[in-house]
């Protein structure tokens, strides 16, 4: 029995998937293997389907604002290629733990992973124009603006983002590109009061317009807001933002144009090799409460201050308390988890109900054989 397969084309990928389906053998789809611990566990005897050979990068000469990327392309490599024409894909998560930034385009999209740029450019799903997917039926299907929509079908391009590989194997994606900013500068301020920080986030989200990124950080009883501006006038705009940040009640307010390391640190704070990472999604106006819970749980936090997305790095045994203290309607998904704790924590925390039933119906309609990353997703899908 083969343990792994590395298809070199869409046809091969579809055939491998269909073959596994015929044998009722679960398939574990992987790219850079940087997030295999996210979600709940897939069976250990699953066939490993590696996407690393699906790595073509197609620059569209007729339209420099879009490109088609093979799902197995390391995102760092794709960004380097795009940078040659002064463009970027506005998706900037931490690309791996430690020194190996191996995350692939497919893996990032399948997990809807994102970074600070999601403030200025929108979430990962907004960057996807179309997808090509291999289904467990053996069919290769495309979705996007140039493909006529099936009147009774779902828009696959939307469903695939964040689907954790449970609908099929992502083969390639057509993405929106943006110009690489020439310069950046960041203004910042801090406080030791989580409520003050939360309130400042609400105020500044509206007072400071055109920010490329707007992050919160909290560590060891102290935290701050970071407002990044991009473009030729970035430095001036960051300097001008200082006034509003002070007015919002923060201290030690300043700005600087050599801000690279700040944002490297923010992205790094989204992953952990030895503790758990809980991605909390709350309303913007609830940030103060989230930070207070984090402080009690001795968690370090980085996050998107205006979007309500926060990454809490904490000990496994504090997860339950944080979840219990969150306001209703928030989600708290476990991402990184130490090996020893795997299986002991419910990664998703999604309650049973009609929403989950709908998710199961969707899974059923795309992967009736149930072989694509089974067990990894919400409700053990």
């Amino acid at each position, binding site marked *: 029995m083969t343990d792994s397969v590395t298809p070199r084309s869409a046809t091969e990928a579809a055939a491998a998937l269909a073959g596994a389906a015929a044998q009722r053998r679960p398939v574990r789809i992987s790219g850079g293997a940087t997030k295999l611990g996210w979600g709940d566990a897939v069976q250990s005897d699953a066939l490993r389907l590696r996407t690393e050979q699906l790595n073509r990068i197609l620059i569209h000469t007729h339209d420099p604002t879009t490109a088609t990327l093979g799902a197995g392309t390391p995102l760092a490599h794709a960004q380097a290629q795009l940078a040659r024409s002064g463009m970027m894909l506005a998706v900037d998560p931490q690309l791996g733990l430690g020194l190996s930034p191996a995350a692939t385009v497919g893996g990032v999209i399948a997990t809807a992973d994102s970074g600070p740029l999601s403030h200025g450019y*929108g979430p990962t*799903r*907004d960057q996807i124009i179309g997808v090509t997917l291999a289904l467990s039926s053996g069919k290769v299907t495309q979705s996007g603006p140039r493909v006529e*929509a099936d*009147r*009774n079908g*779902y*828009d696959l391009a*939307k*469903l695939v*983002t*964040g*689907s954790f590989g449970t*609908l099929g194997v992502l083969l390639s994606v057509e993405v929106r590109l943006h110009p690489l900013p020439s310069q950046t500068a960041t203004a910042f301020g801090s406080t030791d009061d989580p409520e003050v920080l939360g309130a400042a986030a*609400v105020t500044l*989200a*509206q007072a400071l*317009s*055109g920010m490329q990124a707007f992050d919160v950080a909290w560590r060891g009883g102290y935290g701050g807001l970071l407002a990044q501006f991009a473009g030729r006038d970035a430095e001036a705009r960051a300097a001008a933002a200082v006034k509003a940040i002070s007015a919002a009640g923060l201290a030690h307010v300043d700005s600087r144009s050599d801000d690279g390391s700040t944002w490297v640190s923010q992205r790094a704070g989204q992953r952990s090799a030895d503790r758990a990472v809980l991605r909390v*999604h*709350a*309303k*913007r*106006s609830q940030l103060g409460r989230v930070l207070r819970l984090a402080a009690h749980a001795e968690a370090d936090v980085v996050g998107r201050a205006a979007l*309500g997305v926060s990454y809490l790095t904490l000990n496994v045994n504090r997860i339950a308390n944080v979840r219990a203290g969150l306001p209703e*309607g*928030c*989600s708290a*998904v476990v991402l990184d988890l130490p090996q020893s704790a795997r299986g002991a924590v419910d990664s*998703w*925390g*999604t309650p049973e*109900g*009609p*929403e*989950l*039933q*709908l*998710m199961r119906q*969707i899974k059923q309609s795309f992967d009736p054989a149930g072989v694509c990353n089974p067990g990894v*997703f*919400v*409700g053990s899908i």
Partner: protein
Amino acid sequence: MEAGADLIERVRLVLGSEQVLTDPVALSTYRSDGVRRQGPLPLAVALPGDGAEVAAVVNACAAGSVRWIVRGAGTSRDGHALPVSGGLLIVLTRMRRVLSIELADDEVTVEPGVPVATLARAVAPTHRLQIDHPGTVGGAAAQGALGRQLVGLDLVQDDGALISLNPRSSGYDVVGAFGGSHGTRGIAVSVTVRAVPVS
């Protein structure tokens, strides 16, 4: 058409007779949409007043195996607001309430029958909607015209079940997939839209 007559009776019980139109003269006014196009006469027109009534009507249709088409103001030009022969036309234009305005979160939630123009006025002057559309918010959402501004939905499924999704929900991006589904992926009885602060 016994199934039809039974269904009309059931829907009358749920909504009250006043909100169920059966006279052909009245039904005829629903045969076209935003262009001069003629569809067939529907079996009847149902005008639910809230999400619970929508769910009950859809449930009745499922039980009676009667097809339905959902419609807002009928200003669309793509044919998706036209009735089907022997089917019920579920019209959402009585559902016009603004349910919540949370400008601190840049979010506003409305019933599907609220005109897009009204929604734009509701969030002004501190915020603006980046959408211009002649119809209802529900119709604009189903056509994909709300684009990335559509962030949450309460949806009545084909079997009458009600699901609730917002930007903080986990699972597949059903809200994203609803945009452009033209009413084939359930009936939105509440729509959450992101408004952009005016700089």
